[in-house]
């Protein structure tokens, strides 16, 4: 039997590492595996119903609708088997629906919050009610999805919304010194009209750059060093691969919404001031009466806690809870600790209010 030359084991190990690295950086992970059916579409938007795993008598009668941000794919809520919020919720007896906004084309560049909250959401909810047979429902909005759900809930308080969960919701823009994005899009430095006149919609590359540039060293260096250090750890690699697939899969943001986000919210804080107008209606947060759970990520650099803390004092709900969870903007829901630190708390809050 021939002996291997000195260093061949190290060479093989290095070769394996490089193969893993190449695979992780050049392929897409298998994500969004929980079975679902498409029940409604409108333009690019799609409403999915996740196939329940529990019999009807064991499920909560109030269905749950998930609404994610407009400029990212919503499958972060169903990242990979065993690490999926959707999977967790359907196993805990919820009838879960997901509103996927899809990627806007240039023909959608004029879509505004008005269209999403008054044309798309009410129709999707109408379908949800028809399919589920329920008259009441719960809404979970995350990031910009939380802005949409808040506006909708305040404008349509009698639509049957029983519970509203806001995750890392950027609603309060008054403390600009704590919000890096607010500084970047200040009217002295950022000409939103010129950007939109050039691109129509906000390009995904610019959105991705904006999110990554908030923590450039962590995102452009630290993230890849962590990958390199763990190339022989399949669990870390799987998690990194899935997250990287999601992080690099951005979609454009409709120009009309982007303008409202910058001018009405980041610059003028109109939602909290009670001066935001949506298709001629003033968004009055005191009209929001659903049971409210506001979840704050303590280490959130995209939506700092100060942006979500004050909403509970503005709404008309009598049942309202503020929950602080250690972690970042995405980590609290999709990180390795989410299944212990976040999801059970959301389930605990929602279960008693979904009977």
């Amino acid at each position, binding site marked *: 039997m021939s002996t291997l030359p000195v260093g061949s084991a190290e060479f093989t190990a290095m070769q394996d590492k490089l193969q893993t690295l190449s695979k992780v950086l050049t392929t897409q992970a298998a994500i969004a595996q929980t079975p679902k059916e498409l029940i409604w579409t409108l333009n690019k938007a799609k409403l999915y119903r996740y196939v329940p795993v529990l019999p009807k008598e064991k499920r909560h009668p109030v269905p749950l609708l998930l609404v994610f941000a407009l400029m990212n794919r919503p499958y972060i809520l169903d990242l990979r088997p065993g690490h999926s919020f959707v999977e967790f919720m359907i196993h805990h007896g919820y009838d879960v629906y997901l509103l996927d906004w899809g990627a806007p084309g240039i*023909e959608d560049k004029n879509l505004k919050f008005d269209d999403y909250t008054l044309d798309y959401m009410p129709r999707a909810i109408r379908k949800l009610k028809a399919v589920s047979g329920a008259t009441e429902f719960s809404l979970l909005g995350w990031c910009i999805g939380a802005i949409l759900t808040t506006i909708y809930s305040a404008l349509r308080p009698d639509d049957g919304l029983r519970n509203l969960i806001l995750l890392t919701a950027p609603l309060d823009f008054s403390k600009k010194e704590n919000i890096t994005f607010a500084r970047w899009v200040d009217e002295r430095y950022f000409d939103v009209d010129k950007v939109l006149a050039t691109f129509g919609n906000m390009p995904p590359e610019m959105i991705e750059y904006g999110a990554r540039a908030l923590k450039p060293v962590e995102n452009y260096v630290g993230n890849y060093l962590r990958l390199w250090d763990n190339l022989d750890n399949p669990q870390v690699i799987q998690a990194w691969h899935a997250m990287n697939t999601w992080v690099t899969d951005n979609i454009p943001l409709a120009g009309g919404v982007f303008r409202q986000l910058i001018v009405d919210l980041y610059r003028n804080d109109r939602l909290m001031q009670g001066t935001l107008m949506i298709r001629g209606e003033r968004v009055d947060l005191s009209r929001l009466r659903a049971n409210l759970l506001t979840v704050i990520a303590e280490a959130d650099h995209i939506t700092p806690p100060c942006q979500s803390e004050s909403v509970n004092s503005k709404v008309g709900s009598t049942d309202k809870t503020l929950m602080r969870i250690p972690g970042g903007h995405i980590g609290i829901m999709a990180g390795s600790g989410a299944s212990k630190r976040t999801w059970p708390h959301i389930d605990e809050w929602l279960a008693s209010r979904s009977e």
Partner: protein
Amino acid sequence: MSDPQAESKKAADPLEQWRQLRDAYIDIWAKATGEVVNSEAYAEASGTMLETYLAASSPFRDAQKKLMVSALEQLNMPSRADFVSLAERLANLELLLDDMDAKLSQIYQLATAAPPPALPKAESEPSHSAFKAESEDSRHAPKAEPEAKSAAPRKTGKIAKKVSK
């Protein structure tokens, strides 16, 4: 709890000290850049860069757009603007269809739920109650209805009433 085998492997790794030093350096670097990107100077600089890029690229983009439009026109082909306007019309049609679909479902439900008419006198009752049920239902239905009404063709309402009658 840490794995003792992994710990001993880590201790024997000659690169471990270098890795710790590297991580410490990266932490310092991250804090420093965090302060930089959060400054007014960075906001101003990135704004200037973006402005410069838009100003420099705009003449080329405009020229390219004009060239493409005229080329498509010469070839008797539809332009992007034509497709956009078509897509917008399709999206509006989808809204109308969605409202009609919801109305038809409602009518179907009412029609299948109503008891079969037995007596001429009772005949008017179900249709009356069907009307009532519809209006009550729409009170509980999502407030999409008012918006839908503005977007939906008035005809759908008339059709609904005709069928109920």
